[in-house]
C-alpha cells in the first residue's frame, strides 16, 4: 500500500509553484509561456484529485485542460495576427 500523503503534499507544492510561475515567472510577458506554466498547476490539481479518489473529476479535468488550451492558443494567434497589442 502506498502512502498517499507524499503525493498529496507534492500535488499542493506543484500547484503553488505552477501558479507562482504563471503569475510572476521568467518570461511570462509572452502569452504562450504563460499558458505553458498553467499546465504545471493543472497537473498538481490532478494529483490532489487522484489522492481524493475523484476519478470522474480527474478525467474531466484532463479533457477540459486540452480544450481550454486549444481555445486560448486560438485567441492568442488571432489577436497576434490582427496586430493587437497583447
Amino acid at each position: 500500500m502506498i502512502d498517499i500523503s507524499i503525493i498529496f503534499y507534492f500535488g499542493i507544492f506543484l500547484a503553488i509553484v505552477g501558479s507562482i510561475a504563471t503569475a510572476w515567472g521568467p518570461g511570462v510577458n509572452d502569452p504562450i509561456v504563460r499558458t505553458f506554466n498553467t499546465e504545471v498547476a493543472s497537473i498538481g490539481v490532478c494529483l490532489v484529485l487522484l489522492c481524493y479518489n475523484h476519478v470522474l473529476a480527474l478525467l474531466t479535468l484532463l479533457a477540459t485542460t486540452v480544450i481550454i488550451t486549444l481555445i486560448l492558443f486560438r485567441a492568442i494567434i488571432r489577436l497576434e495576427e490582427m496586430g493587437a497589442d497583447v
Partner: protein
Amino acid sequence: MEIILIIAIALMVIGAFGIIFLKKPLDKVIMFSILDAGFVLVVVAFKYLDVAMFAALVDPLSTLVFILAIVKINEIRKNKVSGELND
C-alpha cells in the same frame, strides 16, 4: 512500490522546473512530455489503469496542439519583423 513513487516524483520535479526555467518554447514541449510521463506513473501506482490509458492518449493530442501553436506564432512574428523592415 516505493521506487515507483520516487521515480515519478523525480520525473515530475524535472518536468515542472524545466517548463518554468527553460527559455525556448520547443524545449518546454519536451519537458511537458516528461511531466506527463511522471503523472502517468503515479496514476499506475494508484492502480487506475483506465485513467492511465486516457492520460497517455491525451498526451500526444496536447503536444500536437502546442507544436502547431508555437510554429504558427513563430511564423507570424517572423512575417511581422520582415514586413516592418520592408516598409
